[in-house]
């Protein structure tokens, strides 16, 4: 390609795991009922004042550390002033780059198809969300539940070269939010929203010189990672076509909107710097010196992160990179797997069960992880039942599908379905001889060198035992018995 693509991201993620909002004592919960989690300050009633949620600051500082950012000596907040119906105060409490936000200038490594990639972080800042507008045929309703919910905005340098890189980064960050217990980071709940900027430059020029960069086009409020991928690819295509046609001057600095329905970007407004937000330091929040000891405490409390778990899975448990990648993607799945290992399940077997059967069934049945009744203990017991040859692996799959959502234990299902595997050789010898007695013609075929009839004969044992016979034992017994004839 003759163009070099430069992509930068702004990832907004709601902090969902604090008890209260960013600057208000209202509950920070995802309520189905409109305007159920609000205090007077969330609707900006006259005389209300913001109060900083220390827990949100702690989480912000932790994320800042994980991203390799510098933490400020003093914590400040600023007002971003603009009018919009979903912004009750007429300003958003946020952090600009001056004074320093909760995180500045970091570097983060993520992986794409097994290859490690580095990305520079410009800054991470803590701010509050706006209310949400719900559109009805009769008009728009404003729901203030979201007003004041803490939000971390992560701004990267334009270091991504493809949509795949951008999405791999977003997925890595999302799982960190989940692993650290900062956020569910659930796009379906609108907790993650991205702004994407894309520019194309002549690949032969030096990309360290901003003069050579192409015109930057920003796309606002892309609400899913799939959307981010599509929007970037659409925009690369659009800009490439314009450049190829010699119409480079038609690429203007502007804000475009990603439209899911038409799978295209639509121009919203030209010149991104058209709005002057009149930032100034929020006078109602005194500047706060961040104690060194607190930072150390936060640093120590950072839990094992997804890529660290992945390394452990591969190096200590010996599972494949591919499986490890799948397991760590969702913290809940990874936690489930870890618990199985804690219960001394075989790591490789457990990995197979989780990646193939668990995730496969969730996908097939369109279930959320939270909807299953299967516990790590149940999976461990199921693996044990197979290992001790009490049930066959084929039966185990059937049991698994049952216990996934039934709330029953594997032992209960095995009992209920009369599934016990027949491993008693004496019993199997008896049945093998029954089968041979009923099929003298097949014995003849065997004697004439048709060895493949063993499979059919073993099948007859399985049939007579309704699948309960251990297939390996059934086969070896059959060979022994037919040889005796």
């Amino acid at each position, binding site marked *: 390609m003759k163009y070099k693509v430069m992509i930068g991201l702004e990832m907004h993620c709601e902090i969902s795991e604090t008890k209260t909002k960013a600057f208000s004592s209202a509950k920070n919960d995802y309520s189905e009922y409109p305007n159920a989690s609000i205090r*007077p300050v969330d*609707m*900006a*009633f*006259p*005389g*209300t*004042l*913001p*109060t*900083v949620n220390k827990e949100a600051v702690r989480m912000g500082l932790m994320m800042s550390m994980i991203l390799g950012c510098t933490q400020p000596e003093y914590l400040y907040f600023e*007002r971003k*002033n603009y*009018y919009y*119906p979903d912004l*009750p*105060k*007429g*300003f958003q409490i946020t952090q600009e780059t001056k004074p320093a936000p909760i995180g500045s200038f970091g570097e983060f490594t993520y992986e794409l198809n097994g290859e490690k990639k580095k990305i520079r972080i410009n800054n991470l800042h803590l701010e509050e969300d706006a209310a949400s507008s719900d559109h009805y045929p009769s008009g728009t309703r*404003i729901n203030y539940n979201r007003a004041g919910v803490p939000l971390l905005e992560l701004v990267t340098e334009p270091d991504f070269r493809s949509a795949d890189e951008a999405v791999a980064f977003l997925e890595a960050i999302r799982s960190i939010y989940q692993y650290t217990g900062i956020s569910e980071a659930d796009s379906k709940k609108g907790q993650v929203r991205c702004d994407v900027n894309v520019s194309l430059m002549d690949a032969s020029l030096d990309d360290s010189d901003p003069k050579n960069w192409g015109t930057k086009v920003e796309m606002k409020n892309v609400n899913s990672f799939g959307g981010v991928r599509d929007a970037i690819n659409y925009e690369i295509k659009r800009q490439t076509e314009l450049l190829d046609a010699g119409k480079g001057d038609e690429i203007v600095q502007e804000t475009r909107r990603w439209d899911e329905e038409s799978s295209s970007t639509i121009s919203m407004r030209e010149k991104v710097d058209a709005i*002057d937000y*009149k930032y*100034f330091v929020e*006078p*109602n*929040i*005194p500047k706060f010196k961040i104690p060194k000891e607190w930072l150390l405490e936060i640093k120590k409390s950072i839990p094992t992160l997804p890529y660290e778990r992945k390394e452990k899975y591969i190096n200590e448990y010996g599972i494949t990179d591919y499986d490890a990648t799948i397991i760590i993607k969702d913290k809940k799945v990874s936690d489930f797997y870890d618990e199985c290992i804690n219960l001394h399940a075989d790591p490789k077997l457990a990995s197979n069960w989780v990646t193939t059967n668990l995730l496969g069934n969730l996908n097939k049945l369109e279930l959320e992880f939270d909807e299953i009744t299967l516990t790590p203990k149940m999976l461990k017991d199921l693996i044990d039942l197979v290992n001790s040859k009490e049930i066959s692996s084929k039966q185990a799959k059937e049991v698994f599908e049952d216990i996934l959502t039934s709330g029953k234990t594997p032992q209960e299902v095995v009992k209920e379905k009369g599934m016990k595997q027949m491993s008693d050789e004496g019993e199997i010898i008896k049945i093998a001889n029954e089968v041979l007695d009923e099929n003298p013609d097949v014995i003849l075929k065997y004697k004439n060198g048709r060895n493949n009839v063993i499979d059919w004969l073993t099948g007859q044992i399985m049939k007579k035992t309704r699948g309960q016979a251990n297939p390996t034992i059934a086969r070896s017994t059959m060979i022994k018995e037919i040889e005796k004839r």
Partner: protein
Amino acid sequence: MAYMDKSIEEIHEALVKGKVTSSELIKEALEKSHEVQDKCNAFVTIIDDAKETPVTDEFLSGIPYGIKDNYSTKGILSTGSSNTLKDYVPFFTATAIENLTKKGAVAVNKTALDEFGMGGTGTTCHTGIVTNPWDHTRMCAGSSAGSAAAVASGVYPYATGSDTGDSIRKPAAYCGIVGYKPTYGMISRYGLFPFASSLDHCGALTRSVKDAAIVVDGMKGIDKYDMTSWDSSDINLYSSIDGNVGGKKLCYIKEICDINNYPNADEELKMHLANFMDTIEKCRKLGMEVTEESVSQKLLNALPSVYVVISCAEATSNMSNLTGFIFGPRAEGEKWDESLKNYRTKGFSPLIKRRFVIGSYVLQAQNKDRYFHNAQRVRRLLVDTWNKLYEKYDAVILPVGTGPAKKLEGSKDILDQNTAILEEHLQIGNFGGFPSITIPNGFINDLPVGVNITGKCYDDVNVLNIAYALESVMNYKGQVAKGAK
């Protein structure tokens, strides 16, 4: 027998001894309220159904008082004297008022102010002009005009005020009473309609220094809803007043007080400054050392602009919540922005709109450093200069304004350049958050004038003590306006 023109201590004693009941006091205060409403137009609301409270050990129990109408009061109209909130009945009460209520104080009216505290004349209230009880052709100054007029008229012993530039201390001087704003953060601002958050103070208007101490003792306290509030539970202002000021050191500023600075001085100004020097002599007789100090004229000259820039910038942001969407009378409009524009255009007085324009202008990206940041730098210089003075002196003593209350006719709320610093120097108390009190110190042409004492932060007791000692050697303590023209 009337009680409302007496001191809190006297009224409390009468209540405790059973000479009068709370309900009799309320009846008297309400009757006087209606009288004063006819003469001075001091109130937005008279609470005719105010209920008596039990008499306890608390000085304030059972005693009526007035609340400036920019304090949020649950279930009682709270307008900020603005058409934008002309029907606004809050569902929560300001912390300072809540604290007074806990002590048994009985609110009998809500007093008029310059719209949202943004004026110094008492002429921009949505209910009309407040007139001075000493002379109804004159102003009370503002913005706590209604509170000053009512206390000076003997409606009750005290009313709450708020002070962003001099809004308690100037009207107190013009009305011959005491006006006290304690150190920034001693009283919570939660529930006070904001004007400029970094300058706004709550405080009290009374007829004696001890009453001011009692009232602020009742209002103060750390508040989880105001991060700028601090714990003053170890401070009892009232019981700390002992009148012992021997050896205390005061200073006044030559550039402000010397009559030679004002070649065009009128008779009133000459008398006012001469009277001030008499007061200085009284201080010396009390055993205090008083020194004339010199401060950079250039720095002082910047004071009014610094105030305008900072207060207007914060105000324009603070009042962006007034849109008519959530509260206030919603305006007509095809779209939300049209409705917002109509509400704000019709609701605010021209004076306020002028300040919003200034505030927006100084915050614009291209102007911010030149105006807003420079204003903050000069604010810091002024505060540092005063803090230097406090290294040598217990307090700074200065005359309030250029003389007695100004005539209503011809008043424009626009400063005379020659005497601007004399009119505006009280703003330094807001820049630094200093404790500052105005007490009456004489009469010029039968109209009261005042003197101000300002000390260093957290040194409220010292400031009150000096004011108390000085008050004791003058004849204006407890005075009530009588026989106004």
